[in-house]
């Protein structure tokens, strides 16, 4: 955990150089992300849009897991954002960008309410408690046809409004445009999530995870901080849900079932939750494998089987996630160079 629990970037020249390298890397990353859709086919651009949304979903999930609690309700919370934003836009005519923000707010509010029963529980009990809470929310969507649309859910959800000025015209039906919209929203969200984790708040989350009694003893209100993590994570999950709803144009209770939650868990664990980028790596790699590679191989019936095998093999042979591959590789490189500080210490 040293990387994430770490303090502020160290001062001094070494720090400045590292910071410069870090910024350069970011610039390259964004250049690559900007170029990406032009390398993809149209339908692959569609996949890229969903992938970007899922990156936010899984990254927000990681923030929740920082306090040591694993939820099975995160996708339902995403659904709360999706339903709220869709309903606000459809029924009350709230402009879509604003409704998305409010959708995130609704998800955060639901999380805040749920935290009262849920954070009486810890560990495994929290896991199943969040599952129960999620099922109840889904049942509400199914039962109350007005306004939630029942088992069929909502459709014809207002799309993100086109931008139409004299010289600039952006049509968000085009996946490439929505990709950039999602990229901007998700990058901003990831930046905030990253800042939170690197701030004292993140340090406190980690502290609660590893020794909640010790944290309590020095004045950390663990209930408040667990709630805070849950609410923040839920807010961004809600934003992801809103991005999804106004892109696909339809939501239904099945879309947010525990089956879908399982995928989020899988992305996070296969990617590795020790670092910020681990879960992102997980969702990107697994999506590319499942949606592009396996489909392109023309495998239909056996696709789930291969995917399942990949899951098993990856947790068996990469227990710290795909991200540990990078760490291992770096350590190997350092070893070759004979570098003295191979600080790629494995998380506990």
């Amino acid at each position, binding site marked *: 955990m040293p990387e994430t*629990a770490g303090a502020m970037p160290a001062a001094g020249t070494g720090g400045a150089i590292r910071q410069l390298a870090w910024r350069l890397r970011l610039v390259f990353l964004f250049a690559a992300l900007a170029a990406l859709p032009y390398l993809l086919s149209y339908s692959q651009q569609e996949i890229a849009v969903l992938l970007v949304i899922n990156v936010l979903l899984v990254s927000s999930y990681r923030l929740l897991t920082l306090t040591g609690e694993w939820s099975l309700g995160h996708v339902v919370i995403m659904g709360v954002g999706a339903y709220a934003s869709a309903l606000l836009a459809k029924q009350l005519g709230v402009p879509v960008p604003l409704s998305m923000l409010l959708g995130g707010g609704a998800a955060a509010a639901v999380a805040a309410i749920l935290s009262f029963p849920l954070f009486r529980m810890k560990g495994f009990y929290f896991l199943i408690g969040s599952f129960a809470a999620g099922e109840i929310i889904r049942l509400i969507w199914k039962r109350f046809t007005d306004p939630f649309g029942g088992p069929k859910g909502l459709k014809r959800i207002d799309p993100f409004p086109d931008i139409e000025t004299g010289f600039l015209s952006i049509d968000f039906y085009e996946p490439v445009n929505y990709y950039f919209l999602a990229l901007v929203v998700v990058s901003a969200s990831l930046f905030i999530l990253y800042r939170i984790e690197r701030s*004292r708040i993140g*340090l406190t989350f980690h502290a609660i995870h*590893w020794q909640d*009694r*010790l944290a*309590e003893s*020095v*004045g*950390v209100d663990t209930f408040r901080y667990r709630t805070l993590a849950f609410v923040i994570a839920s807010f961004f999950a809600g934003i992801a849900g809103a991005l999804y709803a106004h892109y696909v144009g339809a939501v239904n209770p099945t879309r947010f079932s525990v089956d879908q939650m399982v995928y989020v868990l899988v992305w996070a664990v296969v990617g590795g939750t020790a670092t910020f980028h681990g879960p992102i790596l997980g969702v990107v790699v697994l999506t590319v494998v499942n949606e592009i590679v396996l489909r392109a191989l023309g495998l239909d019936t056996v696709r789930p089987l291969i995917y399942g095998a990949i899951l098993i093999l990856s947790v068996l042979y990469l227990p710290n996630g795909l991200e540990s591959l990078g760490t291992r590789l770096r350590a190997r490189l350092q070893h070759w160079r004979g570098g003295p500080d191979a600080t790629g210490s494995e998380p506990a």
Partner: protein
Amino acid sequence: MTMQGERPILEARGLTRRFGGLIAVDNFSFSVSEGAIHGLIGPNGAGKTTTFNVISGFYAPSAGRVFFRGLDISGRKTSALAAMGLVRTFQGSTLFQEFSVLDNIRVGRHLGARAGFLSRLLGTDRQSEREADERARETLAFFGLEELADEPVSNLPHGHQRMLGMAVALAAEPKVLLLDEPFTGMNPEETRCMMALVRRIREGGVTVMLVEHDMQAVMNLCDTITVMNFGALLVEGAPEAVRNDPAVIEAYLGSAAADGAGHVA
């Protein structure tokens, strides 16, 4: 050698804690004077640790009250007590093993480094964080650990980990520090060093209450000693008085005879 005031800073009246049918603490009362080093001793299973857990808010008392600076604090949350200045340590090396030494202290500075959510996001908490870091380093220097600030805790030897545990608590700027078995498992050299530290902490104006097995250390260190047995008060007084009290001798001998070896509290 006393800076002892007369006003009790921490007081328990009729404290009782049951677990199911078992009574771990039974109508137990004591009071700790401000500025004192106060020892709480007793044979294995006497209820010392349970008492500690009740005082520090991990358990609510089944009956009775705890007062801190005249305020009824019974049943308040640990974190709220810490905010009031009542901070405890843990047995052994209970630390954030995954963090660096400095980060442990930084968590300990939780209360001292307040900032709003937005300022954390925007980085405008830098001022208060810098202060917190300075204070954290001062705390480390106090324990002679400043060289190790960036080491991962898991690399530290046991003795240093014990000191760090105390440093984390001290970083929270307590008025009363509750030490849970600070000397257990230490060699005489380490114990001596630790005792000196406890005295220096008290000189800094912090009242200390400790639970301990090491009789020698307790007798040498404490101004007042409370002895409990079977969850209840046996004797309270100065070390010499307690040492020679027949009831205390009886309790320890009895328990030692009945106990055999290797009992865990």
